[in-house]
């Protein structure tokens, strides 16, 4: 188990290979892990919950988690709840795009400038959620 003083938040992104919002969720998650909150966050590949063993499935019991889903099917949230534990917070990219009145984005393979700007904003929102979750642990 993770000691109380080792405060980390697990961020679990949907894989979303079919949609540009899936790419945004993965890249935003990577930005948080690598740049915005590198010392406060960890991740796991979502399908590892099923393919992996006990260690992977206990991920959400060891860490408070934030799920990041590309669409309202919310695979990351559902799979995390089913195989690991209830997430501390959930983010859905399509909801955020509506909130920000974003036009339809394209190119799931290579994010264009517009999609990269949105991805940066999503990453910032995830980082704020990380801070919020960590503040509740104190």
């Amino acid at each position, binding site marked *: 188990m993770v000691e109380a003083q080792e405060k980390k938040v697990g961020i679990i992104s949907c*894989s979303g290979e079919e949609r540009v919002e899936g790419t945004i969720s993965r890249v935003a998650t990577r930005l948080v892990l690598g740049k915005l909150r590198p010392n406060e966050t960890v991740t796991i590949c979502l399908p590892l919950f099923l393919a992996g063993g006990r260690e992977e499935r206990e991920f959400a019991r060891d860490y408070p988690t934030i799920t990041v889903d590309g669409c309202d099917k919310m695979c990351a949230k559902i799979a995390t709840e089913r195989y690991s534990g209830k997430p501390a917070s959930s983010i859905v990219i399509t909801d955020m795009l509506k909130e920000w009145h974003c036009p339809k984005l394209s190119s799931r393979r290579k994010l264009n400038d517009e999609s990269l700007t949105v991805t940066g904003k999503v990453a910032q929102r995830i980082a704020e959620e990380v801070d919020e979750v960590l503040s509740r642990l104190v």
Partner: protein
Amino acid sequence: MNTQTSPQKKVIIIPCSGIGKAFGSISRDATYEVTENLRRDTTQTLCLALLVSGDQESLQLVRENKCITVDGCPLQCAEKNVRYAGGNLAGSLRAVDAYKENRHLKPRSVTFLDPDGQQMALKLAGRIAEKVDDVLEGQ
């Protein structure tokens, strides 16, 4: 002899969701190269997480069509999850196989593929496309 032609089924290419290593990103990029360019009329991809979460349409898709999985690491989540879902697995490839044949390439970047990663993705895409052809010839 039955002269009726059945509707063309597509080969489903399912990459791993690897988010922590370059090989996961390479498996996805290779999948996009096949489904959007090399074999766009005969293939499509599917969110692995959607399949894992038990989505009925996804389950039906992998059971009624031939599937090729493309994994980024030895845990082989894509292959295992397609098998677990009762999918019609026709082939499984690994990004590391493309690496073994192209050791001069050193992909490092995960979030956005560097030139070596992009090149390896194209090599892997070629192998996937060959596998697609094999699968379709066998149908």
